[in-house]
């Protein structure tokens, strides 16, 4: 193997450590656990969207040969409730069915064949209830409620923010543009569907190995819902086969726990099939948005009015937080002095809206970035020019009225775009369109917050150990769901300790071994854990050097340098092997734990307490500008993205390859969202339950992407970096929509941008002009 993993400078490519096993099929994911004596567990899903539960008939299934047990809510000893913010989702339904994916019963069987048969034998007696499926209408419905105990009826959370003169400022504008927008659900479509493996050992310890982004939070949820002592629950989180927010919170953890409690000593396994995953899992919220944007003649944006409705389905999951982040970003990266922003996130009987990479921001970006283009057009300004005149600079107020205090590279991103050949040569490229094709170029500018916001502590606890054989071992509490943060941690530690990467070991998240460090989400994993790890690594280095200095009676630790595997005393040239030194250190010197909590905004202006609880305002933001070359087939209406450019300010770079992976992946998901992906639900029933109806792009449907990084130094970040995992997801939909508008002079207000919608809009335009 010629791959060089020895150079551990920050900013250099270090090939990903996890790839070595993954590429050989040797990495063991949660879904890969298997043993001869294991028990298969399956879930009976409701299949109907809204009903009062009367009776669950399990006798037939229970008596089937090969069935070990059939469990219902009666077998749940704890609260039977789970949820990240509001505990409103039952482990197994006890009173009401609130969506088709609700878990009603659990079957334990000796093999998959018996399991399938048993599940089909369970019958549910229920009384159907009226369906609540339109979020905007459900707000005022006081009679039909998803949760009778919710104080705000069907409204999970409503947020409003007013700045400046609010709507009164529209009278001061020279022009005002209004439009409404709709976006559908987006499904994560991680390739590894929800899976896990659990066992209750003879000491009463329940160990759950599961594909999750949040092992420590899962542990509390499992304990509470099932009525267990938290000390008796252990969660192990291997690498995920993709997650993207969809495994932020409970998927199968409590069900696995419940099953394992029933058969002590025996391993149980759940692995959802694709259809069940699509039916039961959370989605990116479908939304309806109403926008009104006013500007002055000089191109300055002056007033913004926003109302939007996010459909969160039957359970909170993270719906309130998603809505709040949408609200915070609803005016984009622009300085708009007068705003009136209102958001609602609403319970319905549709699939659950929850966390999904970029978390509520793609929806508002679709709207806002088209609004900006519409204003530009009316003012006869180029889309780039209007953005350059309005994007925020450090110290400016963002649309929610708080001050941008982090490094702010959006102007840099746009200036690079301005000088880029793809921008400069766009007119010529458009003119060269082949027959029956029209070409357009669209851009978008975006900001995206990092971390949890002002109230929920955004912390990490890094632990690092000098092992008995002289290597360094990182105990990592944050999951790697595929994004490669693990590798960055190893790179950071190796750099500080001046070691070959091969001298660094890593323990994956395990609630018994590693320390609570929050979720793998919110573009915060490398930032938060990285900062904790830097502190821990530096401290450990100091301990080791101090110990050596004391041992050989050196003047100070400045006389030493650490090199791979050893320490050199510079004045004498003597070297000391780490595997020898380690013998002189006791555990409290060999093992260092450091806590880090991310800084938060101290501003209290215009943000009510509930919104603060749900994460507004943030302190640190990343920025991007995007550009899409789109080509439309005039006869089919189909859009093809021919070239894509992304310019990112996510601070300094730790590993350029891993950063580019995040950029590519986010754009690919964004392009899927822009052109293909539409999770269709009718009357609470999902219609797109496989990869032939819910279509994600293949290798033949995506362009090569060019990515450029601005690399501004973010002073609070580890080595000057800030979050990069989500932001690029936001750009493709508006950039492509703006490209379509540029090519055809039509606006598409509803995504995805299908050929049918484009042909329809062209037809309407033709009819209008006649």
């Amino acid at each position, binding site marked *: 193997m010629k791959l060089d993993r020895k150079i551990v400078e920050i900013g250099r490519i270090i090939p990903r450590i996890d790839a070595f096993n993954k590429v050989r099929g040797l990495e063991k994911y949660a879904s890969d656990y298997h043993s001869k004596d294991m028990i298969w567990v399956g879930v009976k*899903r409701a*299949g*109907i969207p809204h009903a009062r539960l009367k009776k669950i008939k399990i006798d037939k299934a229970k008596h089937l040969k090969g069935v070990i047990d059939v469990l219902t809510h009666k077998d749940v000893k704890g609260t039977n409730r789970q949820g990240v913010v509001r505990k409103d989702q039952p482990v197994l339904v006890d009173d009401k069915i609130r969506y088709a994916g609700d878990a009603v019963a659990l079957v334990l069987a000796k093999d*998959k*064949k018996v399991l*399938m048969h048993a599940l*089909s034998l369970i019958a549910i007696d229920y009384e159907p209830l009226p369906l609540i499926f339109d979020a905007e209408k459900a707000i005022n419905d006081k009679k039909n409620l998803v949760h009778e105990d919710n104080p705000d009826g069907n409204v999970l959370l409503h947020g409003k923010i007013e700045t400046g003169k609010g709507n009164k400022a529209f009278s001061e504008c020279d022009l005002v543009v209004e439009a409404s927008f709709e976006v559908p659900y987006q499904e994560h479509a991680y390739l590894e569907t929800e899976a896990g493996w659990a066992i209750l050992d003879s000491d009463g310890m329940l160990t759950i190995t599961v594909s999750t982004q949040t092992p420590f939070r899962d542990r509390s949820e499992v304990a509470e819902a099932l009525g267990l002592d938290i000390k008796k629950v252990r969660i192990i989180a291997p690498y995920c086969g993709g997650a993207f927010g969809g495994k932020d919170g409970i998927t199968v953890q409590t069900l696995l726990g419940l099953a394992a409690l029933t058969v002590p000593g025996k391993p149980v396994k759940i692995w959802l*099939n*694709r*259809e*069940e995953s699509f*039916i039961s899992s959370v989605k990116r919220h479908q939304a309806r948005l109403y926008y009104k944007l006013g500007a002055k003649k000089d191109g300055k944006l002056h007033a913004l009015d926003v109302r939007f409705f996010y459909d969160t389905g039957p359970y909170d999951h993270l719906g309130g937080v998603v809505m709040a982040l949408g609200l915070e970003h609803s005016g984009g990266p622009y300085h708009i002095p007068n705003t009136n922003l209102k958001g609602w996130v609403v319970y319905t009987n549709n699939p659950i809206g929850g966390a999904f990479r970029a978390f509520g921001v793609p929806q508002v970006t679709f709207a806002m970035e088209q609004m900006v283009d519409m204003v530009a057009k009316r003012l006869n300004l180029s889309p780039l020019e209007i953005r350059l005149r309005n994007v925020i600079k450090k110290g400016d107020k963002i649309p929610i009225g708080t001050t941008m205090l982090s490094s702010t590279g959006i102007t840099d991103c746009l200036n690079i775009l301005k000088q880029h050949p793809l921008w400069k040569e766009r007119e010529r490229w458009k003119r060269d369109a082949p027959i029956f094709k029209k070409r357009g170029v669209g851009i978008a500018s975006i900001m995206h917050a990092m971390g949890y916001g002002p109230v929920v502590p955004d912390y990490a606890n890094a632990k690092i150990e000098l092992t008995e054989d002289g290597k360094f071992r990182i105990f990592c509490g944050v999951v790697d769901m595929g994004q490669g943060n693990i590798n960055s941690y190893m790179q950071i530690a190796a750099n500080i300790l001046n070691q070959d990467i091969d001298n660094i070991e890593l323990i994956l998240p395990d609630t018994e071994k590693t320390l609570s460090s929050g979720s793998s989400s919110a573009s915060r994993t490398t930032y938060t854990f990285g900062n904790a790890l830097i502190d821990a690594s530096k401290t450990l280095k100091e301990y080791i050097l101090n110990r050596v200095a004391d041992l050989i009676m050196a003047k100070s630790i400045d006389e030493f340098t650490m090199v791979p595997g050893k320490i050199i005393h510079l004045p004498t040239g003597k070297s000391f092997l780490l595997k020898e030194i380690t013998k002189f250190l006791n555990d409290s010197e060999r093992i260092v734990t450091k806590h880090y909590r991310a800084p938060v905004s101290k501003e209290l202006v215009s943000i009510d307490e509930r919104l603060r609880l749900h994460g507004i305002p943030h302190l640190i933001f990343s920025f991007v500008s995007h550009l899409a070359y789109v080509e439309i087939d005039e*006869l*089919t209406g189909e859009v093809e993205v021919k070239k894509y450019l992304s310019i990112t300010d996510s601070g300094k770079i730790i590993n350029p390859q891993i950063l580019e992976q995040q950029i590519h992946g986010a754009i690919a998901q964004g392009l899927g969202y822009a052109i*293909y992906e539409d999770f269709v639900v009718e009357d609470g*029933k999902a*219609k797109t*339950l496989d*990869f*032939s*109806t819910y*279509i994600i*792009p*293949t*290798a*033949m*449907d995506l362009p090569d992407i060019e990515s450029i990084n601005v690399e501004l130094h973010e002073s609070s970040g580890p080595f000057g970096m800030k979050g990069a995992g989500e932001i690029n997801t936001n750009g493709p939909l508006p950039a492509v929509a703006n490209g379509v508008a540029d090519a055809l002079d039509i606006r598409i207000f509803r995504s995805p941008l*299908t*050929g*049918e919608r484009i*042909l329809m809009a062209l037809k309407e335009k033709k009819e209008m002009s006649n």
Partner: protein
Amino acid sequence: MRLPSFNYLEPITLTDALNLMEEYHGRAQPLAGGTELLPRMKLGLTHPTYLMSLKEIHELKGIKSNKNELYIGGMTSLREIFLSTLLQQKFLAISEAAGSVAAPPLRNMGTIAGNLCQDTRCFFYNQSYFWRRGLKPCFKAGGNVCYAVPGSKKCFSVYQGDLAPALIAFNAKVRIEKKGSSRIIPIEELFSGKGEKPIVIADDELLTQVIVPIPEGIYGSSYRKFRLRNALDYPLVSAAAFLAIDSEKKVKSVKVVLGAAGPAPVIVKEAEDILKGKKVEESAINEIAEAAYKRAQMVDNLGLPASYRKKMVRVFTKRAIENAFNSIK
């Protein structure tokens, strides 16, 4: 997803296979590549008691030709058909159709007989047991309702095979065998036109060979397929065109066939009248496209609205004819 239980048969000669077909009359389901049948079994749409794999019957594999005809064994893989230089040179539409099916691994598995004999599909039918639970069975599932066209008296499922339109454009035939006898029919007669049971093959018969007459003179052909992605997807509309011309560039014969436009491939019979004896000009192509548009039977039962798919019939018919013309060397 698991498969329901069945018994497995694996004859190694055609004679054995035909004997088994007779013996298990109606209970033995032939299994070719499995790429279409096994997903249907997983969805619980079909429950064969016996599954008879044809994979080990080597006499059913391979492409041969003589002066007049091309012979493709029923178990020949779509990949082999796609990669055959003979087909690329002389039967372009067939090669293009084979190359447009799904993606490489599926083309390695899928066979020409399996592709031809695939079942019709519908958004409301090709769904799992979980999805269909609580709904009355539709016509195709043996019931008497249609969810695609509420109130209708028949099944509106769609034939989405890629190969059939291209083969029909070349006037291809199929050999159908049963124990002791064999018959050859034009491919269009393989289709009943009924969504409930689209393929007309008796319970004891097997489709063993595809026979394509080698056209004389100067000709071209093309298969154009409309789908959302550039890979994997079934056609939402497709069109195959065959065009033979004389030395003065006047059309000697023309055949245009639509796919995914009803429960069977649709032959646009008007094409012959419109183009025969004339030069290929835009107005005539438009006229054929219009005839195709009228013949296409579209309802809202696939991934896109029927009205849009129907519009695409015009577009893809034109593209197929133009490409066929341009492929004439």
